[in-house]
């Protein structure tokens, strides 16, 4: 698609410069037009029109720019370039490839350099899947490019009118070369441009019914997110937002991953860049980097580009969804995005809402999360975008506007807890405060794909944890020995669920990923222990004797063992024997 020219290009002049927000006059402009600011032609976007004044946010540093310098309106909207070459790329917030920027301006980010999102020189092998005479319409897949191990499907842009193919090519082309000509004369290259602030159209939104399996026990096991779902992961600094997001980027069973480092650390992006090429997808065995697109607008890069980064990311995600892929998008951190909005808004001297955030904060948040979903694409396939947003509340206080605005929209809440992270209980997700609203819609999937027992066992585990929390209040007052004997068993079982099942070390080669089968097996053994222990207690065995059983001591080791089955069976057998002996002695 071509983003339509709204008018002839216009040239105005700068009147005022105050940081990332500048004012121009004598300029014919519409909201969100992309403009070139100053003699160096820095990229900017119109964000407010007030009388003669055209107010522009600039995506680069404005130092040294003077009133009187020119401003040129391109008449285009801020758009992403979509086509082969996206995968394995790392972009800044306005889709400039960081590797190209290093080539053009060295190790430090300078300004005034433009760089297109896709290579316009590289040739890709285009294989048509349609032929002359075939009817096409918006979204129709006309051909394929083997981009990495992923097949990049070339589509008719979403807003094109239907037509009939006159010629379609086969061979090596740049993204700009025409690969398909329709009978009415329209020519299509592989590239599409899409304005990032506008959601790409779909045929229909559906209700998600399949979980996004992440290999993280507390997520898949207790608080699952569906493919096409939304989740928020708020937490104070150092509680595990980034590690969790990176775990999802690594191990979730999405086909495409878009990872947005929005106003966060440079070193974290380096970590992804150095690590991902060496990691393999547990299913396909292919390097994880091959399915990944990274967007890195770190905290010290311009704030206006940080504001845009989230839109650039979700547009790329939607594009792959339109090919029929399951895409997952992580945004770390949406709070930095909100702060960028706040910073720009305060420079516009807008009336501030709560805590200085603009009044439209909640609207922007919900518009963003609404771009997630399981859909029927224009070409009738099923595709999804799952969105997982990190939230960084000031002082770790969840009552602030970004957390609250997010919780009103998302369906899954993974509440990070500083108390847990301080004792190195990772992932530090609080099992009492977190929730997933997808449990009902995913019920059948777990029934069928894991075990008919799974849903019951999950409820059982949640009950034990809930019960433990109540008992802990009593323990805090009187000590654990004062509890009734059956409840002392409950305390021990809850400890096992926490330490064995919930705790999962992202840095352990084996434990970093745990499939549903193993999750189920682990939980089943804990429940077996629980049943044996209660039975023994009822038969008169003392809690001290129960706690002293040796068979359970090897259970925590199971998570570090790849081929865990034999060890687990051995533990279960020993447990059974040990408790049988205890019961008969009692």
């Amino acid at each position: 698609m071509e983003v339509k020219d709204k008018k002839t290009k216009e040239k105005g002049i700068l009147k005022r410069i105050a940081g990332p927000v500048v004012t121009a006059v004598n300029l014919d402009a519409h909201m969100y037009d992309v403009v070139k600011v100053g003699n160096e032609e820095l990229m900017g976007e119109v964000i407010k029109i007030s009388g003669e004044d055209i107010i522009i946010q600039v995506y680069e540093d404005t130092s040294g720019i003077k009133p009187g310098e020119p401003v040129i309106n391109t008449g285009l909207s801020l758009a992403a370039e979509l086509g082969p070459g996206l995968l394995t790329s790392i972009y800044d917030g306005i889709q400039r490839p960081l590797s190209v920027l290093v080539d053009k301006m060295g190790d430090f980010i300078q300004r005034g350099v433009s760089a297109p999102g896709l290579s316009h020189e590289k040739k890709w092998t285009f294989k048509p899947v349609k032929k002359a005479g075939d009817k096409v319409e918006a979204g129709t897949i006309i051909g394929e490019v083997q981009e990495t191990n992923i097949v990049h499907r070339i589509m008719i842009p979403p807003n094109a009118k239907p037509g009939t193919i006159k010629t379609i090519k086969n061979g090596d082309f740049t993204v700009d070369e025409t690969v398909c000509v329709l009978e009415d004369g329209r020519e299509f290259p592989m590239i599409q441009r899409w304005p990032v602030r506008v959601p790409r159209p779909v045929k229909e939104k559906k209700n998600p019914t399949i979980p996004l399996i992440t290999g993280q026990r507390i997520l898949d096991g207790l608080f699952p997110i569906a493919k096409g779902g939304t989740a928020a992961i708020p937490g104070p600094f150092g509680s595990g937002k980034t590690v969790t997001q990176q775990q999802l980027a690594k191990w979730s069973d999405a086909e495409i991953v878009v990872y947005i480092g929005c106003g966060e650390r440079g070193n974290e992006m380096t970590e992804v860049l150095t690590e991902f090429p060496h990691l393999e997808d547990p299913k396909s065995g292919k390097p994880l980097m091959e399915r990944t697109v990274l967007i890195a607008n770190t905290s010290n890069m311009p704030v206006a580009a940080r504001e845009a980064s989230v839109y650039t990311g979700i547009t790329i995600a939607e594009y792959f969804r339109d090919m029929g892929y399951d895409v997952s998008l992580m945004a770390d951190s949406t709070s930095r995005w909100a702060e960028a909005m706040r910073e720009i808004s305060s420079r516009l001297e807008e009336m501030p809402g709560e805590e200085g955030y603009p009044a439209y904060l909640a609207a922007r948040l919900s518009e963003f999360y609404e771009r997630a979903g399981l859909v029927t694409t224009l070409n009738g396939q099923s595709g999804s975008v799952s969105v997982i947003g990190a939230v960084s509340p000031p002082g770790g206080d969840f009552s602030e506007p970004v957390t609250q605005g997010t919780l009103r929209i998302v369906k899954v809440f993974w509440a990070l807890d500083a108390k847990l992270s301080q004792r190195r209980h990772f992932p530090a997700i609080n099992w009492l405060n977190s929730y997933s609203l997808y449990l009902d819609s995913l019920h059948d999937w777990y029934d069928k794909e894991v075990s008919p027992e799974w849903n019951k066992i999950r409820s059982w585990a949640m009950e034990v944890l809930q019960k433990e929390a109540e008992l802990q209040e009593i323990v805090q007052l009187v000590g654990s020995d004062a509890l009734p004997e059956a409840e002392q068993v409950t305390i021990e079982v809850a400890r096992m669920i926490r330490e064995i099942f919930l705790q999962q070390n992202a840095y352990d080669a084996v434990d970093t990923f745990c499939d549903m089968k193993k999750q189920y097996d682990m939980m089943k053994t804990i429940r077996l222990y629980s049943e044996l222990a209660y039975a023994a207690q009822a038969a008169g065995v003392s809690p001290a004797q129960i706690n002293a059983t040796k068979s359970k001591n090897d259970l925590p080791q199971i998570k570090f063992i790849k081929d865990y089955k034999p060890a687990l069976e051995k533990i279960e057998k020993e447990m059974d024997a040990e408790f049988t002996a205890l019961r008969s002695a009692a």
Partner: protein
Amino acid sequence: MKEYRTINKIAGPLLFVEKTEPIGYGELVNIVLFDGSIKRGQVLDTSDELVVVQVFETTAGIGKDSGVRFTGETIKMPVGRDMLGRILSGGGKPIDGGPEIVPEKRLDITGAAINPWARGSPNEFIQTGISTIDGTNTLVRGQKLPIFSGAGLPHNTIALQIARQAKVLGAKEEFAVVFAAMGITKEEANYFMQDFERTGALERAVVFLNLADDPAVERIITPRLALTTAEYLAFDLGMHVLVILTDMTNYCEALRQIGAAREEVPGRRGYPGYMYTDLAGIYERAGIVKGKKGSITQFPILTMPGDDITHPIPDLTGYITEGQIVVSRELHRKGIYPPINVLPSLSRLMNLGIGAKHTREDHKKVSDQLYAAYAEGNDLRGLVAIVGKDALSERDRMFLEFADLFENRFVRQGYDEDRTITGTLDLGWELLATLPVEQLVRIDRELINKYHPKFRNVPKAT
């Protein structure tokens, strides 16, 4: 250069200048007083009608009759190799009686962001000789690791011990220390300077001093001057640079003061809404650049107002830095040095710098287990206060004792005690060995068999 005498308003550190030719945003401004002395400032807002200038020194003596010269360039800092061993003011002027700096280069003090693509991955273990850092919150080269402290706590002593002892094992490379003081007392500054002189570190150091009685607004540029110098030493001259910034709390106060003068809508507790971005512009100037020899490791120090870690200064810092070392008043009262509370402390880059390749294969798991056991023991202290020791189970009593042992053996060490990493890890095992082996659930059997004192049958470390 044209001189304007059109100041029409002075508010706090801000000058409002009228009727100028077009002036560039961010330009360096010289303000000429009646006696010919010059003060420096920077353009914050520029338009046809009005230019707003932020002055970096006191505005005392500036009046409507003062001259304003716009230099046409952003603030630059002259840098050169002979800065090593020099003491400069918080504004970058020599105050040690020595000659002016002979510049080899003049660099923009705001610095440009390192392109994430160009960053190298920090993974070289720095041994500080302090167990609570090396063992449980490991520092790596290129990391930014602040010290969160409180008024009256020994953060300066800790910072100095780190500066003295920090080394990369087996490496003999050029290193330097850049020390930037913001609003600290003369006495504190002397404490640092005397230690630098005593140990000969001054020769390899560049010192920037903005003291408590120096202009507060100057503090806005002090860390930027220091980091510009550090970048030159690291990325032009290939040195490994340790940057100590103290006290970042004073920096943030200065930032708030300017925000108020500009009549901005304040954020939390009156600090500007852009403080996160502003601090990131300082802290992110740490790291490694691929293909370049040097590195910048940052040790910002801040005092938490009211010991409150959720206060915006430590909060925003923690959101940017790669962990934090938290100094605890409680441990200090118990007479433990260094009073580092490991529970809220964290080093996020630890995992990159430890393990078989860097320290020892058991490092991560030992650290995790020490944490878990100490956290559990520490929690039980609250319970003991209510129900007494006797109400505890056997298991709980062991953890309670472990917590004391941990504080007295692992945390406590001498001001000059430089522990090796093997010593620290062996000490960790020795303490863990006081717990039943089946309680060591964070460690896999293999490592237990290899390193646990009960199983390994090798002589104990001292």
